[in-house]
């Protein structure tokens, strides 16, 4: 059907000459090669983490381990120089609380700014907007000064709380709630609910897709963040997994298979989050346009 269509009358845009067999083959070859290149680093992690060091650093490049070293899986946890298990746990706590906190604080503020009439609301909104101009990465010096004077260095508080007040995420929520259908809330008000009740019983349950999208992005950012945990984690017991990985790179002795196994383990939770929540992730990025 579609293949004959372009020949008759006006060419159809989507299925023009390029849609032919040759064009398609070229297209798939190009995409396939690019895809392999993008997957290569993932493969290298798996390959290196299941090889012996002798094989990794051997004279001849091997694409596959001759003898898969399943025993490597426990090695990062037995390593005495870096407490890998502790750093993984720290990352889990930080990423989960970071995500929960941001969703709570920023969504409430975004809703307030979008929907609750208040004569100074605009001024408050401009206050939020100005923080968008100052990238958080630049303020790490003064933030560290503040957090250390609060005595929060090396603590979960110090790792989590300063990152919760993201002007950007608040802004995204505000934009989203501006487009939320008013009719739903009005119905809730008729039923006698105040703003607070309507928010929790009507607005949030009807916005779960958007919350899931922001949660996914926030979780990935929280898990992967490095600069702030590096600044705050002065003591190895407060390291997140990223700081632990980084410390492997500067260690005196390089233990290849251990380092790559640790890297693989650090990536695994995110790949899971990623594959399961991808729909929301893509949708969220397409909707918001920008990383939170």
């Amino acid at each position: 059907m579609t293949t004959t269509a372009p020949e008759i009358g006006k060419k159809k845009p989507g299925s023009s000459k390029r849609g032919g067999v040759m064009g398609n083959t070229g297209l798939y070859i190009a995409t396939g090669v690019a895809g392999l290149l993008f997957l290569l680093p993932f493969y290298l992690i798996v390959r290196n983490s299941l090889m012996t060091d002798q094989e990794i650093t051997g004279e001849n490049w091997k694409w596959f381990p001759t003898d898969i070293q399943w025993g490597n899986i426990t090695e990062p946890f037995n390593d005495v120089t870096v407490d890998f298990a502790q750093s993984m746990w720290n990352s889990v706590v930080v990423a989960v609380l970071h995500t929960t906190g941001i969703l709570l604080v920023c969504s409430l503020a975004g809703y307030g700014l979008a929907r609750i009439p208040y004569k100074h609301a605009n001024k408050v909104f401009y206050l939020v907007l100005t923080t968008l101009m100052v990238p958080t990465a630049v303020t790490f010096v003064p933030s560290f000064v503040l957090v250390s004077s609060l005595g929060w260095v090396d603590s979960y508080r110090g790792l989590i709380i300063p990152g919760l007040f993201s002007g950007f995420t608040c802004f995204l929520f505000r934009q989203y709630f501006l487009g939320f259908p008013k009719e739903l809330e009005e119905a809730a008000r008729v039923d006698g609910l105040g703003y607070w009740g309507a928010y929790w019983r009507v607005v949030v349950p009807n916005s779960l897709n958007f919350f899931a999208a922001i949660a996914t992005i926030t979780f990935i950012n929280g898990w992967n963040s490095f600069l702030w945990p590096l600044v705050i984690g002065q003591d190895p017991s407060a390291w997140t997994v990223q700081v632990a990985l980084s410390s492997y790179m500067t260690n005196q002795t390089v233990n290849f298979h251990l380092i790559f196994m640790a890297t693989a383990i650090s990536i695994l939770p995110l790949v899971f989050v990623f594959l399961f929540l991808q729909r929301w992730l893509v949708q969220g990025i397409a909707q918001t346009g920008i990383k939170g």
Partner: protein
Amino acid sequence: MSTTTTRGVAQPAPAKVSKDRPRRGLRASSTFNFWLFTGPFLIGLIVFVFVPIGWSIYLSFFEARFTVTPSDFVGFENYKQVLTDVDFLNSLVTFTVFAAFIVPATWALSLGLALLVNRLRFMRAFFRSVFFLPTAVSYVAASLIWKMSIFNGVRFGLANTVIGWFGVDNIAWLASPDPPWYWLVIVTVRLWLQSGFYMILFIAALQNIPRELYEAASIDGAKPGWQTFRYITLPQLRATSTAVILLLLVAAYQAFDEFFNLLSKATWGQPPLVELYKMALGENQNYGAGSAGAVVLTMLICVVTLLQGKIMGFGRGEEGK
């Protein structure tokens, strides 16, 4: 569009009931509710964003080594120190070179991938995931793979193995500034990590281009391929392109993770944030100079953002959203 039809049906019923009683109650309490919703966020914003910024500006005028409550006012001394600091100035050059490579490269690669994926009829979701998957990897983990496995300076690194097949000698990718091979490592790691993310933005934008435009163009005799891309696709992507370039620039300014991990022992290729980190949290703990550097950097970012906004018309047409 469709709301006009539903509104006609849904409106009359609630309008009658909600006329007086609930409305007035909400008005009266709306100030309270506003602060109930935004209060916690605002307090946090002031304490953890505005206070640090203010403190930073304050510290930048004081001699503040190893202390955050200094007493020694030095005026613009710290700024003078930062702006004459060769390392800091070099870091700005490093940023400029980095941005000059990474911004166009990511723009082109992510747009190219989006065009490829968008043309696929089968396995579209699969390939989109493949290109998008690196978004889940941290800069630290990626730096580790790049430094230890791909661009390792000895023979077992992948890059050296591959060039070895063609009889080329090993290259110490990260170990010397001349020739600057480290740029290849730095740029490719970031390309791999971020292109998939921007590809998603471009795919979303591509799908928003009205089909009729292509139909009209083909009637007017435009050949599919370069011509339609040049005269329809590219102009239609203008808003997205602008946003992408802006995001890429700001992200480039904030580069820290991969530079810190790939070039930890090097004296070359240090971007501004690494310099600030060393200045404020290194051996000297010079908060005064570090703060002055942060202020300078923030101002630079603002200027660049505003300039780019002016040039590319960012923000136009955003009001309606």
